[in-house]
């Protein structure tokens, strides 16, 4: 630091207070000559007053790093420890945070954003190692808003140019299901509700795969689907005792938050299972409904591949029939064969309860809310004459202006009266 003494060797005034491990030294920054140094050893009586210094503080590596960045890095490490992530994840997340901090936009961002950035770095690390961590969990741990989180997340992925793989559904199922407190009897969980973890996991996985195949997962938040699948799996393993339990009560028992869309996912999954049950020979006679189909989920899952193929015809075949009219014979012979094949499947069915429904996402199965007519072809050139009358309609007459001003003044007066200073 300038303003002190001079180096006896080279005579420069650039002396720096630097510590060599636990020994404080005054060093010349030009020639490296140690001008003065503190005491290396301490007496016994002195040592009583000393505290130990962590390695990271003694090496001076944090002198270059700003305080807010240090705080952020500490938060990253804390978050990794709370989530019980492997130690390699910690280093990667810290590296991402440091990389992000090099950008001026991040350095100048608000503290709220820097806090959320911590979560983003940890999330990206987990995604890249296929560790199933949801954004909801991270936001809950950081007490952050999902909107702020999403904005920062998209920004940082673009800024750092990262390739972030999608959330791994199978791993998420395993982690999420394991968090359900149903595998041991407790005062809140009656014996009839306790379930074996492996059985429940495998059945839930099969149900989630079924949901994925029948377009219930694409475009939706994955967690409510898994909640609904877990509930159905649990119910179907002992339906006689568990049919009376509702989804909300189930989540309360299991000590898991019920996500709001889970009930509609449950209904969708049940309707898929019902359509599959219509194709199963020994279930056709039973006239199942959404409650009774739960008892037969085991059978349905066992034959799910064939049943899905039989219960749902390809939703696109219907669309293509319409497209064909538009295009003439553009497609060639393959389409014709496809139609023939699907219709030939129908023939040996004999009398079927209903024609196969198209396999489409639920948003396409609902009737359109309003039919948008194609806009009329407008012949506006942009250079037409604008009539004065048309413009006049948007202007106030002088009388109207006076009235408006009077009304405004009156309102101001009323406001100042009602709020006395």
């Amino acid at each position, binding site marked *: 630091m300038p303003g002190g003494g001079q180096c006896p060797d080279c005579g420069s005034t650039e002396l720096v207070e630097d510590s060599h491990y636990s020994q404080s030294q005054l060093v010349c920054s030009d020639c490296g000559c140690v001008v003065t140094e503190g005491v290396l050893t301490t007496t016994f009586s002195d040592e009583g007053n000393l505290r130990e210094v962590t390695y990271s503080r003694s090496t001076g590596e944090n002198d270059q790093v700003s305080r807010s960045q240090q705080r952020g890095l500490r938060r990253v490490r804390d978050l990794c420890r709370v989530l019980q992530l492997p130690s390699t994840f910690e280093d990667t997340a810290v590296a991402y945070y440091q990389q992000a901090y090099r950008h001026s936009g991040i350095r100048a961002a608000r503290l709220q954003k820097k806090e959320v950035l911590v979560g983003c770095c940890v999330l990206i690390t987990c995604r890249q190692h296929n560790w199933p961590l949801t954004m909801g969990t991270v936001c809950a741990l950081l007490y952050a808003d999902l909107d702020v989180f999403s904005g920062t997340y998209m920004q940082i992925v673009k800024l750092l140019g990262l390739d972030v793989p999608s959330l791994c559904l199978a791993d998420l199922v395993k982690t999420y299901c394991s968090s359900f407190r149903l595998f041991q009897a407790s005062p809140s969980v009656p014996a009839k509700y306790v379930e074996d973890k492996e059985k429940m996991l495998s059945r839930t996985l099969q149900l989630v795969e079924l949901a994925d195949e029948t377009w219930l997962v694409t475009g939706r938040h*994955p967690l409510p689907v898994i909640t609904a699948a877990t509930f159905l799996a649990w119910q179907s393993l002992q339906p006689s005792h568990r049919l009376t339990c509702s989804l909300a009560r189930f989540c309360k028992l299991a000590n898991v938050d019920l996500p709001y869309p889970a009930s509609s996912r449950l209904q969708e999954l049940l309707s898929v299972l019902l359509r599959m049950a219509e194709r199963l020979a020994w279930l056709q006679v039973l006239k199942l409904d959404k409650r009774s189909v739960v008892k037969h989920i085991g059978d349905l899952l066992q034959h799910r591949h064939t049943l899905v193929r039989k219960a749902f015809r390809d939703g696109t075949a219907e669309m293509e029939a319409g497209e064909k009219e538009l295009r003439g014979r*553009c497609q060639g012979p393959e389409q014709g064969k496809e139609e023939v094949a699907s219709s030939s499947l129908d023939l040996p069915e004999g009398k079927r309860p209903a024609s196969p429904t198209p396999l489409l996402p639920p948003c396409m199965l609902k009737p359109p809310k309003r039919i948008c007519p194609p806009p009329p072809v407008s012949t506006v050139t942009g250079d037409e004459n604008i009539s004065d009358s048309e413009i006049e309609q948007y*202007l106030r007459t002088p009388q109207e202006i006076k009235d408006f001003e009077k009304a405004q003044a009156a309102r101001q007066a009323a406001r100042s009266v009602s709020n006395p200073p």
Partner: protein
Amino acid sequence: MTPTVCSGLDRVEAEAQGRDLRGPCPAPSRPDPQLGPASPFAPAGLINGPCATRAQSGSAAAQLAWALPPSRLSALLTVGPPPMEEEQTYLELYLDQCAAQDDLAPPGSPLLSPIVPDDGYIPNTSNSETVFNSHLQEVKGASGHFSSVDLSFLPDELTQESKDQSVIRSKQDIEENCKTQSQQSRLSLPREQDMGLGLINDSTLSKSHSQAYPGDADSVQPSPEKPNSTPLMSITPMTPVTPVSECSGIVPQLQNIVSTVNLACKLDLKKIALHAKNAEYNPKRFAAVIMRIREPRTTALIFSSGKMVCTGAKSEEQSRLAARKYARVVQKLGFPARFLDFKIQNMVGSCDVRFPIRLEGLVLTHQQFSSYEPELFPGLIYRMVKPRIVLLIFVSGKVVLTGAKERSEIYEAFENIYPILKGFKKA
């Protein structure tokens, strides 16, 4: 379809000459001046030598007949202008029979969009045509050896001009079938076809060919020599190759246009808010007057500096008309408003492909362009590089395109994405 035709014909020619052919198709060493006008490879599999040299080609025709197996020859000797898909199947038949490994050069750069300025809409089918024609070019390249082929045995319809017309006619039929809903005129297409065919001669795929066949400038507009596709293009499927018959037939509808204009005078926003009925002004909330007009139904933000933003129009002309109306209102309020630097800043379009899309699959194959976070947003965000458009793709098949400065960019982006989406049609 790989450009296997050249090698096949070379093999034929090699057989004819008793030569052994190895490795990639060699560039014909002797520049053949007889190979004059653009001779498109008739999609029916016929080789059209230049008309002028028919007389000398008897022997070569005999060679041709002898060298090719009978089935191939029958495919070649199809008569009449068949519709496009039949032409294609014959071509495929022929190509299948020519088993070859080499590739001279990647099929004509997808950047080879012909110069069609009038409509401002360059359909991507032009790319497919140029690719298609590039296959023809391979054949034509090798067919230089058959310059002396006597094709007098072929019926008259299969002369070059009528072939052009028949191809154009069939293309027009296809276009009509495809674009029943299209508002754009497709008359540009035959011109593109000609240009595409002409381009075969001018900008050839391999440099050696370009030396051998200087091409013919009179029948073709000079076109820039397009280099082979950039490395980026060859790696990533940005402008996929589609045969003409698979045009989408769907036209995105414009939903919103955002434009700006400079009124070039300082404005008193309080006075505007007082004198205009359709204006709202809340300086604590936003530092501009929000004005609305009924026809065209739009909203404008008018700032005190004189700059104005006009949103909500459904076409470029409507946006301009609306901006002029706002300027006229400001004029009538007593300000010396002008109408400078009108510019369209953003255009938003939307359409429906009418089949469900597996977004998870799309994000896997097009990871460098797509961003799909179902926890945040139900749609997939696809950032196309050329043209620079952002597309929101939903599972129901609805597509929103935004970020365009020109209408053609929206159409081009949709034509680019449609084949990619069709690939994910059947789960």
